């Protein structure tokens, strides 16, 4: 069975290590904040200038001056810091954020990512995504393995305009977790009940399958 959005987020959260500084993109990545494993503490960076993003505010706590990068009202956690956009991206560009999780349209076996522009459609902009993929040490992409027409999003080469090159380490889709290295997708885990064959069928890029591929554990 393909994973739900929540399940993808849960699997992402298993990658978090105690004491990690993490930037979560809009959508599924943001959901991962709800599944941080017990006994582990992480700090969430929001690129508009907040390190230590807390939960959404209660009605009484709502403050127009306190938002996240998705422009939603938020709170600050204990020990948070707030700073300018230049400082925020100094952190990001300088490689100080440990993990970045973001969505994508396509990823290819060179670790390239396309996530911001579909020619012919209105382009709204890249926001901070290009800085994040250029700067983070460890980038996890979350997306469905194939689009709604069944076309693979894990390609030999991206077809859409890129967000960054040679930057993606890990992909967690509704079907599998994969690592990119040596110009190939290495299958690490499969979603419970999903066969290696289905993953092979839906992966257009070079796929390496070594030994038995375990199922994800939740």
């Amino acid at each position, binding site marked *: 069975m393909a994973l739900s959005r929540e399940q993808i987020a849960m699997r992402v959260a298993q990658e978090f290590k105690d004491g990690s500084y993490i930037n979560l993109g809009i959508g599924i990545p943001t959901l991962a904040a709800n599944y941080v494993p017990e006994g582990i503490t992480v700090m969430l960076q*929001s*690129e*508009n*200038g*907040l390190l230590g993003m807390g*939960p*959404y*505010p*209660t*009605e*009484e*706590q*709502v*403050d*127009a*001056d*306190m*938002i*996240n990068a*998705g*422009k*939603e*009202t*938020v709170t*600050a956690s204990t020990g948070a810091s*707030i*700073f*300018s*956009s*230049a400082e*925020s*991206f100094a952190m*990001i*560009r300088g490689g100080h954020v440990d993990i970045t999780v973001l969505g994508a349209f396509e990823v290819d076996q060179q670790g*390239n990512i396309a996530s911001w*522009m579909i020619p012919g459609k*209105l*382009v*709204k*902009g*890249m*926001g*901070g*995504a*290009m*800085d994040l993929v*250029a*700067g983070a040490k460890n980038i996890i992409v979350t997306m469905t393995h194939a689009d709604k027409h069944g076309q693979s999003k894990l390609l030999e080469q991206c077809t859409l*305009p*890129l*967000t*960054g*090159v040679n930057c993606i380490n890990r992909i967690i889709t509704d079907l599998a977790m994969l690592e990119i290295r040596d110009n190939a997708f290495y299958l690490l885990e499969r979603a419970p009940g999903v066969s290696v064959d289905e993953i092979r069928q839906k992966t257009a890029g070079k796929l390496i399958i070594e030994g038995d591929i375990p199922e994800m554990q939740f």
Partner: protein
Amino acid sequence: MAGFDKVVSSYAEAMAGLTDNMTVIAGGFGLCGIPEGLIGQIKRMGVTGLTVVSNNCGVDGFGLGILLEDRQIKKMVASYVGENALFEKQLLSGELEVELTPQGTLAEKMRAGGAGIPAFYTATGYGTPVGEGKEVREFNGRPYILEESITGDFAIVKAWKADRYGNCVYRHTAQNFNPMAATAGKITVVEVEEIVEPGEIPPSQIQTPGIYVDRVIKGSFEKRIERKVTRSA
């Protein structure tokens, strides 16, 4: 104190000197920390042909979005736009030009502009449409692109408090692009919620030293929230 007293009493005074075809750098992220009254004054002045540098362009009817209504903006330099229908319409019709710039590069371009750094290298955007036509150079085996800094004829900034000398502090995440914008204007105008006397803000807590600031005005703010999300208490 006269020489350093930067407080002006009207929006007209605050934006005096702004003319057609100038470049205006604006602080703010979405609708958070935007100089609402200064934007309103630009609308009232009716100047056109503006190049506006700001992370976003407001929404329909609020923030920088109101400058689209009378087609005052010729070119927008931003990282994320299209939160409003009018923007989309003018973009598609070719009335409005957009230069999309990665958010961190945009912040750094403003900072560099204010700091006398004409250009810098960054990995951001290398190998993407953003890098097209830009010089590529390797440092320690990694390719980077050359990005030039930005300065403006005017910078419009929203701060929480400023003293009469123009020393500013920002409130929470309403800081965002405001400190960099403040450094990058030939004329920098700061709109604040409260004006205090020099000395009231401790020297080490000042986030924008007054040397960057030319005019200070006390504004009143609606502070519209773009996406209110709450949890139950």
